[in-house]
C-alpha cells in the first residue's frame, strides 16, 4: 500500500483552526442591507403618520368617509373622500378590463402556444412596454388617444381630459405586469399536468383553460392584484390625461381626479405646511398606502399558497 497522502492524519483535531469573525461581519452587513427595506417602510409610515393623525384630529372620520364632496383646497373646504376613491376605482376598473383579458390571453399564448423563439422575442418586447415611462403614456393618451376617441365616438362627449383614455392607458401600462407574471405562474405549472391532460385526449385549448389556468390560478390572481395596485397608484397618466376635477361622477367621459392625482396636484402646489389642505395630502397618501398594503398582503398570501402546492 502506498504511503498515505492524506493530510488529515487521524487524531488531528476537527476544531476550528482560527475564528471566522469575517463570516459574522459579512452576515451583519448583509442583514443591514436587508433592513434598509424595513427602514424605507418605517420612513414612509413616519412621513405619513403624524400629519395624518393631525388631519384626523381636525377632520372627523365621519366627514372624511361620510360625505361625497371633495375639495380640501376650496373655501369652505370639503373632505368627503369618496369622489377621489371612486375615481381611483373607476380608472383602475377600466384598466383591469383592458389589461386582464389581454394580459392573460397573451400569457396563455406565450406559455402554451408560442414556440420558444416567439417567446424569446415577445417577452422582451413586453418588458420594453413595461419600461415605457408613464409620462409617455400620459402624453400619448392626451394628444393621441383622446382626440382619436373624440373623432370615432363623438356621442361619448368626452371631455378633453377624461377617465376613459386615462384608464385605457393605465390598462395598457399594466398589461405587461399581468402578462409576464401570469406567464411565469403558468410556466411553473408542472409539465406533467399538461401531459396528463393531453394523454386523456384533451385539446390544447381545453388543456390551457381547464388545467393550466386553474393550476396557476393563485399566481394569476397575485399578478392581477399587483397590477391593480400599480393601476391604483399610477400618477402621471391620470395627472396628464385624467385631470384633477374632484366631482362625484361615474361617467368615464368626465374628467376626474384619482387619489394619486390629488396628491400630485396638491403636493406640487399651494398648501402651506401645517395647513389642513397640506395634511390632506398625507391623509390621502395614508389611505393609498393602506389600500396597496392590504391588496399586496392578500397577494403575498396567494403566492405563498400556490408555492406550497407544487414544492
Amino acid at each position: 500500500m502506498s504511503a498515505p497522502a492524506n493530510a488529515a492524519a487521524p487524531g488531528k483535531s476537527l476544531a476550528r483552526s482560527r475564528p471566522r469573525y469575517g463570516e459574522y461581519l459579512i452576515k451583519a452587513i448583509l442583514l443591514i442591507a436587508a433592513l434598509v427595506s424595513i427602514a424605507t417602510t418605517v420612513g414612509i409610515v413616519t412621513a405619513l403618520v403624524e400629519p395624518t393623525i393631525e388631519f384626523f384630529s381636525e377632520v372627523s372620520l365621519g366627514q372624511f368617509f361620510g360625505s361625497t364632496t371633495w375639495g380640501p383646497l376650496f373655501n369652505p373646504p370639503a373632505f368627503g373622500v369618496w369622489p377621489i376613491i371612486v375615481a381611483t376605482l373607476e380608472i383602475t376598473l377600466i384598466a383591469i378590463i383592458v389589461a386582464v383579458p389581454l394580459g392573460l390571453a397573451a400569457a396563455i399564448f406565450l406559455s402554451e402556444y408560442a414556440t420558444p423563439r416567439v417567446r424569446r422575442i415577445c417577452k422582451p418586447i413586453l418588458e420594453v412596454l413595461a419600461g415605457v415611462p408613464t409620462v409617455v403614456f400620459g402624453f400619448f393618451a392626451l394628444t393621441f388617444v383622446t382626440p382619436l376617441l373624440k373623432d370615432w365616438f363623438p356621442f361619448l362627449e368626452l371631455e378633453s381630459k377624461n377617465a376613459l383614455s386615462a384608464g385605457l392607458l393605465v390598462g395598457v401600462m399594466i398589461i405587461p405586469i399581468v402578462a409576464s407574471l401570469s406567464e411565469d405562474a403558468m410556466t411553473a405549472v408542472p409539465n406533467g399536468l399538461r401531459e396528463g391532460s393531453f394523454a386523456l385526449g384533451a385539446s390544447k385549448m381545453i388543456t390551457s383553460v381547464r388545467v393550466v389556468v386553474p393550476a396557476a390560478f393563485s399566481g394569476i390572481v397575485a399578478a392581477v392584484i399587483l397590477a391593480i395596485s400599480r393601476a391604483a397608484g399610477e400618477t402621471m397618466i391620470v395627472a396628464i390625461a385624467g385631470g384633477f376635477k374632484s366631482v362625484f361622477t361615474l361617467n368615464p367621459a368626465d374628467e376626474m381626479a384619482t387619489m394619486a392625482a390629488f396628491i400630485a396636484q396638491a403636493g406640487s402646489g399651494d398648501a402651506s405646511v401645517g395647513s389642513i389642505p397640506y395634511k390632506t395630502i398625507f391623509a390621502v397618501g395614508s389611505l393609498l398606502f393602506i389600500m396597496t398594503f392590504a391588496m399586496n398582503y392578500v397577494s403575498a398570501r396567494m403566492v405563498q399558497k400556490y408555492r406550497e402546492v407544487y414544492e
Partner: protein
Amino acid sequence: MSQPNVTIRGPEVPNTPGSLDPVFTVEDLSVFYGDYEAVRNVDMMIGRREITAMIGPSGCGKSTVLRCFNRMNDLIPGAHIKGKILYHDENLYGDHVDPIEVRRRIGMVFQKPNPFPKSIYENVAYGPKVNGIKRNMDTVVEEALTKAALWDEVKDKLKQNALSLSGGQQQRLCIARAIAVKPEVILMDEPCSALDPIATTKIEDLMQELRQEYTILIVTHNMQQAARVSDRTAFFTAEVDDAGVRHGRLVEFDQTTRIFTKPSDKRTEDYITGRFG
C-alpha cells in the same frame, strides 16, 4: 455465469409468438428530436390484452418509443418519426389522423403521479368531460375508480383535493383517470419508480387485473418488475455509431420468460445478469 439471476414471477404467457394478436405493429421506426436520431429502426408488435415491458439502460429511448404510441411526442417541438406504427392496420401517423383522437383511445400513465390539482372526482371526470361523453358521470367515476382498485379508499372523500392522496393512491388515481375515457391501450412510463414497495405491489397487482381488458405497455427500469408482470419484453440499449452519436436500438423482443431465461443476444444477457447498467 450466464444463467439468469432475476426472479421471474411473470404470468403464464398463453400466446406463443405466432399467436400474437397485434394491436400495434411497429415497422422500422426511427424517432428524431430535431436532427438527433434518438431511436433507430425499431420493429415490434404489441399484442392485444398482453402486458409488454420495455427495459434497458437509461437514455436508450424507451420513453421516446413509448410516447410514439399515443403521439405524445408531437408536443415536443422538432420531434418527428420515420417508419410506421400501425394501430389496427391504420397508420397512427397518417395524414387524416387526429392526435387528440389517438390519445383518447390510447391512455397514458406517467412516471410521477400527476393528478390535476382538483378534487378526486373531477380528476376522473375530466377525461370523459373533455371527450364529450354523455353518460352519467357519477357512474363513470365510480366504475373507473373501482377498476383502479381505489374506490374503497376514496369513496368517502371524492370532493377532496387529489393532491392530498399518498403517492401510490395518486398513481392509481391517474390510472383511474386514464380508464375513465375507456381506452383500448394503456401506456405506462415507469409508473412505480416514484413509489414505495407496498404501493408498487398494489400497482403491479392492478396491472394484472387490467390485463383482462386492456392492452398494456410498460416502461420500467426495474428488471424484476418486468419479469414479474409482463408477457413480453423488449430490451433496448444505446449504441454509439461511427460518428460517435448514441442511438437507441431494440436489441431483442420476445416472450418475457425467454428474455430472462434464454436471451439470444449477448447484450441482453449482460444487462439482465447485472454486468452493466
